[in-house]
């Protein structure tokens, strides 16, 4: 129904703090764009600028091709789901959902029809007469979603909507949001600090750091080809193992040789925990990274186990399938194949 275009958007607070330092994102129609990053990276500020709750210092924000910099949140035709739901505590669920429509002068029977319809899709029909404080966290979350959907806006904005739910409910709601967004086909911007949420929800993933876009693209592309050490360590749990190289780049921090031909300018080598194998003595494919590692801790998760090891002067995590046989103190040979290695230069950029 609408595209969202950000062109060199900046936010400078009075006092000179630059929260967003020039961000350009083009979100295609019907896409779910997830802004992810650590706290203070400017992702919420960016969302609030799209919403019109925060003034844009410079650059342009367009919704559906129309520049909206000077337009208030009401006229932008957006709906927002807040972290703490921000339901009106004195209003019944029905009125919470109807409030925005009433303010727009929608006819009464039309409001009634739409509220009931949305309540039915969200399984809220039996709760319409309750007040927010009589609802559980998950139900409140649904009402907040319902309030956004009922207005059928051009753009949905989600500000960490699941961070107040427990882990199980969070997983459930994640799937629900994804399905809902797909079936409604409404362009959405979703802010989170949870990389798992970001990976699973996004059509388009934007990783932000210190007010700048670090990388954007399809979630799996970002995962497989992180553009920087920051993205590599932020996306993926546990994060990518990063080992610094010293000297001319042929040895590790502890002085042991890498035995690899490195690309020019590379000063850091990285590999994902699941891309490394614990191999018995034997032949390894040419170009593989071979590390001798000492197990420090074992985290059994069930379907897989994570071995935390000391190797090459740093700490690495290796994923092994099923139950791990290694015990703390064991010596292992960790092998990562050549095509799964990532190289980063002095500035942390991918080589």
């Amino acid at each position, binding site marked *: 129904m609408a595209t969202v275009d950000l062109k060199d958007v900046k936010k400078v607070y009075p006092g000179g703090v630059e929260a967003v330092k020039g961000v350009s994102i083009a979100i295609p129609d019907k896409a779910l764009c997830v802004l992810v990053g650590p706290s203070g990276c400017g992702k919420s500020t960016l969302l609030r600028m799209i*919403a019109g*709750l925060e003034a844009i210092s410079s650059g342009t924000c367009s919704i559906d091709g129309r520049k909206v910099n000077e337009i*208030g*949140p*009401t006229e932008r035709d*957006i*709906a*927002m789901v*807040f*972290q*703490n*739901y*921000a*339901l*009106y*505590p*004195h209003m019944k669920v029905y009125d919470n959902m109807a*409030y*925005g429509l009433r*303010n*727009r002068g929608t006819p009464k029977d039309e409001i009634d029809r739409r509220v009931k319809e949305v309540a039915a899709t969200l399984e809220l029909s039996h709760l319409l007469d309750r007040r927010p*404080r009589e609802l559980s966290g998950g139900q409140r979350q649904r009402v907040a979603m319902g*309030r956004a959907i009922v207005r059928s806006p051009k753009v949905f904005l989600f500000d960490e909507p699941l961070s107040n739910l427990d882990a199980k409910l969070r997983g459930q709601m994640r799937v629900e949001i994804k399905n809902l967004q797909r079936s409604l086909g409404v362009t959405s911007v979703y802010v989170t600090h949870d990389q798992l949420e970001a990976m699973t929800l996004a059509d388009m993933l934007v990783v932000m750091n210190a007010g700048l876009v670090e990388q954007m693209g399809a979630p799996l592309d970002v995962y497989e080809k992180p553009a920087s050490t920051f993205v590599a360590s932020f996306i993926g749990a546990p994060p990518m193992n990063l080992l610094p190289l010293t000297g001319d780049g042929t040895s590790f921090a502890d002085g042991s040789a890498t035995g690899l031909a490195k690309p020019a300018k590379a000063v850091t080598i990285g590999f994902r925990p699941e891309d490394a194998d614990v191999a018995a003595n034997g032949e390894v494919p040419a170009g593989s990274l071979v590390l001798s590692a000492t197990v420090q801790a074992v985290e059994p998760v069930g379907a897989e186990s994570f071995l935390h090891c000391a190797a090459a002067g740093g700490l690495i995590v290796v994923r092994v399938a099923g139950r791990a046989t290694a015990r703390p103190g064991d010596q292992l040979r960790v092998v990562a194949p050549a095509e799964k290695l990532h190289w980063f230069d002095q500035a942390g950029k991918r080589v």
Partner: protein
Amino acid sequence: MIGASRSRAYIAHAVLLLGILVVAFPIYYTFVASTQTLQTILRPPLPLLPGREFFTNYSEALFGGVGRIGGVGVGTLLFNTTVMALGIAIGKIAISILSAYAIVFFRFPLRMTFFWLIFITLMLPVEVRILPTYKVMVDFGLIDTYAGLILPLIASATATLLFRQFFMTIPGELVEAARVDGAGPWRFFFDILLPLSRTNIAALFVILFIYGWTQYLWPLLVTNRNDMNTIVIALKKMVSFADADTQWHLVMVTAMFAIVPPILVVVLMQRWFVRGLVESEK
């Protein structure tokens, strides 16, 4: 109860009963005096049980017109006082909730200056500014009017601060949700802020109604005509220096009438009042 042994419970109850007695006895005695003839009152000791003049005294006070205050019945006095107390309570709430709304939710130049200006008025008691206020009221021709009784008393720094504190506990997200939902400043105020403040308003109303009801100095200055007196002023006027000159039985009746409305307000609004003081809506 902590340490719910029998003797402790007895002691606790005894203390409470004593407390009630200390508070309630003077009021009871006033009631007793209001049902006696003037002669009985003037000849001590006053009996501890109500006399037989209840209807005579009360009807005289209500409909007879009491001599010393220019033939004005208690009904008129009660009406005047009610108008003033309601005017002060409602006026104060309206003004302070609006100024608190402006100070908390809007960004305008000199916002903090205005806040401090309001705050500073707390430091000046009514008595200090009573002469200039009186002069202003005279110039406006508001002596012996309800407006003159009410207006100078309706600006309230205390109530403004109270609402300000409450408004500051309203989460920013709620304000933003309302903005996204298309609620302008007025709609936000009436649809969201006012309903959320209703317990605070109720508590303030009770306090301010009693404050207005018991006003003494200002009504004394600003009213000259007997039919504009408030009940508290009339009460004062009824009491003469010479004991024999004072119709004590009617004074007592008037005192009873002066007490009852504030009690009614407290009793009727008790539930809201307590909620407003102890609980904030979540």
